[in-house]
């Protein structure tokens, strides 16, 4: 519930009536309208809905909307009861558990419900989190902190940088693992960003989120968080990774490499998939099962902190009929490099190629990825591809478009000229480029 507004969601005449009656959300009220009397607790109003209704919770727990028309009398019966939540006692940790810090960036990984008003309050302190997911205290010694309170779609390269700086500080403080609780929409981008900024870290840096919000009993938040804590505290590898459900089932979780993961479903628990590369590990029955040999080991001494992201990178998806002016416009707005999401093996309309060539000649970076998502680009097969190469476009192999965009933002922040950007973009840094392409599994019909 928005802080401060005691008549949240109400507007117009209804708001005036409620205001004049001196009632606020959570009060027990009586509403007299059209010869009917309703009694219940005043609830917040859904903002997108018709403003001419008062919503109350009836004594049996159900909400109903009352249409306000003609003469209406609203009376307060009793004032709102303040939630009298008593914070749980500080959790006791077992001796010798690894230290894991959970950083929250927004959203709610755990929450409490006020059944009176339907309000959902996030649990953000370590104590609160542990009282809701007590299993954590058997896995690691948990510390929790709030980094940002934003929607994941509001993330920016500047915030990736602050996130990286914070994690670097935790690494230097000697924690054994870091968990970043993140909204799922752009979690893949942030995971890629930290993969480039924190190279070969000595500890796991684990992103985790939830596809079902934490106020519902079926939320995947707790299961994901428990597995993430296990990976952060106990994994033998130290990778920037994403831990989420591997399938619809709560009993199998996948650990994806930060540069290889993409959200591929809008709502399902198994939305996150590794693309062009298998997950690096799975978590089942409380055990971590490795699925890759090529992993950076916990305690790595090759750690390099490389912060800095530029906001001058762009990601442009090509579509049939696209106008080349769009690219010009971006450059006019200060963009210095563009990752194209082309069709198939890496193509855009031949009509756009002259513009790309001109901009490239002016020092703008162009990299090609594929909107096919799966597979690698190859621009030598068809004429268009060859023409694009000639115009100066760099084929970005099997890099995910989003990862390529994040990497470009990172490159632009450190390379001194176009040649350096082009060179750096093709240099493998955090597992974002792969050499071998693997087949998909055979379909078997009965």
């Amino acid at each position, binding site marked *: 519930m928005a802080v401060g507004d005691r008549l949240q969601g109400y507007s117009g005449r209804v708001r005036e009536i409620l205001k004049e009656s001196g009632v606020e959300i959570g009060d027990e009220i009586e509403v007299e309208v059209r010869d*009917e009397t309703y009694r219940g607790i005043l*609830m917040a109003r*859904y903002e*997108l*809905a*018709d403003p001419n*209704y008062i*919503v109350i*919770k*009836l004594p*049996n*727990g*159900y*909400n*109903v*909307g*009352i*249409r306000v028309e003609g003469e209406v009398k609203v009376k307060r019966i009793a004032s709102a*009861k303040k*939630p*009298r*939540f*008593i914070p749980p006692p500080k959790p006791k940790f077992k001796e010798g558990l690894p230290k894991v810090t959970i950083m929250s960036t927004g959203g709610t990984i755990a*929450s*409490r*419900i*006020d*059944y*009176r008003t*339907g*309000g*959902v*309050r996030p649990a953000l302190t370590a104590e609160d989190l542990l*009282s*809701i997911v007590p299993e954590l205290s058997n896995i690691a010694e948990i510390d929790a902190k709030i980094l940002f309170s934003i929607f994941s779609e509001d993330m920016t390269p500047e915030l990736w940088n602050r996130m990286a700086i914070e994690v670097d500080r935790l690494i230097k403080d000697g924690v054994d693992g870091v968990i970043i609780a993140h909204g799922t929409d752009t979690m893949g981008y942030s995971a890629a960003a930290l993969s480039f900024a924190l190279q070969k870290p000595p500890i796991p840096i684990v992103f985790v989120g939830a*596809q*079902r919000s*934490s*106020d*519902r*009993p*079926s*939320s995947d938040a*707790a*299961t994901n968080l428990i597995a993430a804590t296990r990976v952060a505290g106990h994994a033998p590898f130290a990778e920037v990774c994403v831990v989420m459900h591997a*399938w*619809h*089932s*709560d*009993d199998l979780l996948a650990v994806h490499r930060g540069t290889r993961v993409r959200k591929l479903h*809008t*709502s*399902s*628990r198994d939305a996150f998939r590794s693309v062009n590369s298998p997950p690096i590990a799975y978590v089942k029955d409380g055990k971590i099962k490795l699925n890759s040999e090529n992993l950076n080991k916990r305690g790595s001494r090759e750690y390099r902190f490389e912060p800095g992201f530029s906001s001058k990178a762009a990601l442009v998806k090509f579509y049939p009929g696209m106008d080349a002016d769009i690219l010009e416009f971006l450059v006019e707005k200060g963009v210095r490099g563009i990752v194209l999401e082309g069709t198939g093996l890496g193509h855009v309309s031949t009509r756009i190629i002259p513009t790309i060539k001109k901009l490239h000649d002016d020092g703008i970076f162009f990299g090609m990825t594929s909107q096919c998502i799966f597979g690698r680009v190859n621009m030598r097969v068809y004429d268009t591809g060859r023409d694009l190469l000639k115009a100066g476009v760099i084929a970005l192999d099997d890099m995910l478009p989003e990862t390529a965009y994040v990497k470009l933002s990172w490159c632009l922040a450190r390379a001194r000229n176009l040649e350096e950007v082009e060179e750096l973009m093709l240099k493998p840094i955090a597992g974002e480029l792969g050499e071998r392409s693997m087949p998909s599994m055979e379909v078997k019909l009965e």
Partner: protein
Amino acid sequence: MKIDYQSIGLKVGLEIHRQLDTRCKLFCECPTEFVDGGREIRFVRWLREAQSELGEVDPAAIFEARKRRKIVYHADTLNTCLVEMDEEPPHDLNREAVEVGLVTALLMNAKPVDEIHVMRKIVIDGSNTTGFQRTCVIALGGEIIVDGKKIPIQTITIEEDAARIIERKPHEIHYDLRRLGIPLIEISTAPVINSPREAYRVAYAIGRLLRATGKVKRGIGTVRQDLNISIRDGALIEIKGVQELDLLPKVVELEVIRQLHLLKIRDELKKRGVTEQMISEEPIKDVTEIFKKTRSRILRRKIDSGGRVLALRLRKFGGLLGLEAAPGIRLGAEFAGRARAWSEVEGIFHTDELPGYGITEAEVRRLKDFMEAGELDAVIIVADEKSKAEDALQRVKERAIEALRGVPSETRAARSDGTTIYLRPRPGAARMYPETDIPPYPISREYLEELKRRLPPTLDEVAESLSRKYGLSKQIANELIDLEKVELFERIVSETGVKPRVAASILAEHMKSLKREGFNVELVGDSDLFEISKLIAGGEIAKEAAPEIIKWLSKNPGKSVRDALDALNLRPVDMSEVEKKIDELIKRYKSMIEENPRKASSVIMGELMKIYRGRIDGGKLYQMVRERIHGQGGGS
């Protein structure tokens, strides 16, 4: 036992749940009729209740939380989608279901709400993949008149049906997701019902009213009745899941007997001077030694797998545990029900029922000696893992203390014999919060006016018009309605030209009486009944043949009416052959005809009926014989 329900202050309220026969589920486009042949996937979930901001403790929620289990869902891809799997937000509230709710509300003079708000009601036993049931109030108030008495309706709600349990193991529970999300309507009456018979009458009346909407499902599993029952000095008991309407009076009666029995025991315990302290002070003791060599199979199994036998003495409870007011209604059963539900123990016995279950007299004697139990005392034993057994006996203690106060308020589950078993404590104020994925749903005045204009007739009105239109008795018209054959009846009459009374007696009387005789008449399809009527209308078979054909078809599923005619030798007869036969008989009985024509024709009819029963209408045959005889007579 004859009970004066008035004087004991019986009050019953009903909650009738009925599946709606809508095209699709309440929040997705999956069908509400099961489709076969889909691929099944299974997935595992765990549920945890989001904590309440108020920090309050709900007894029912604690009960479920203690039993946190691995939940395995079976999802059939033709009947379930990502919505039932809780992998996709709900789609819009099903308009068709809302309309059925509103029509029901209008038929009951209830007041539809101005705006529907879908709520989440926390249910963490796994029956809903989300951990809550989506439910919404459609209307408030209203009433129905049953046998001249006004029964107030409290709420009319629409909610999603739950998943069906397939298998329950100690730490794992399996659910089939096909049923999840089918719309249910719930009608709650005020607690004004005063007798078992009245409970039946009210439920029946609500059922008929719902059927008038033409949008409710029928058959086993489509209706569930919950009751709340109280008597003076007793307690409010919720009874869940009575599936058969006919069982309702028995459930009410047995619950009254149970409560009266518990009150009687309370008085007896008082008389014996039992106090709360006497119970709470009793220690729980380990008596495994006594049963080390027992031949009781259940004790043996528990001891062999590392379990212990624990015992609790209950002073002055002797004889009261086994005292039976009606089959299954004993204090001992109450104790066992409580212990089983909370602690999931299997082997629980009390000395009133021992020796027995393979436990010998010698063992009982040693047990009583060890527990220092006197003549009037009882001993309860539980065999299981030590912590479980201990917990179970703690529950027994609590329940024994409650016995001193009379009837504990609780939620019980109905069994198919009308008895009930402890299910869980009664929930506190419902834990509900708004379903934010679904916007409020306004009900405009114009829409309500339109619904009022096209309100379906009640079934009484339907019966009235049927009997008027077709000259049927009120009773047979009602039977057609109850059997849901009205539509078929009207189609048969208009398309085959068979007499309405004949069609009605085939569809209602014959089907009903054959069913009573044990024939599987459900196997006889509407198209078969149509065909039979058509043959009767065309004079190809006699109406008397109908029951025989129905019997044959019910025993030979998959066969056609034509097959039945062949098998029963009911193929239409060649009329010239019949005439020839009549002439033959007339010749044979010539002298009798001359002496006594009336007797002769009846003898000839008898002979003919042996051959043609069911194949030619008797009246028609008699007519032919008469004509032939007259013709003969005229000629001589």
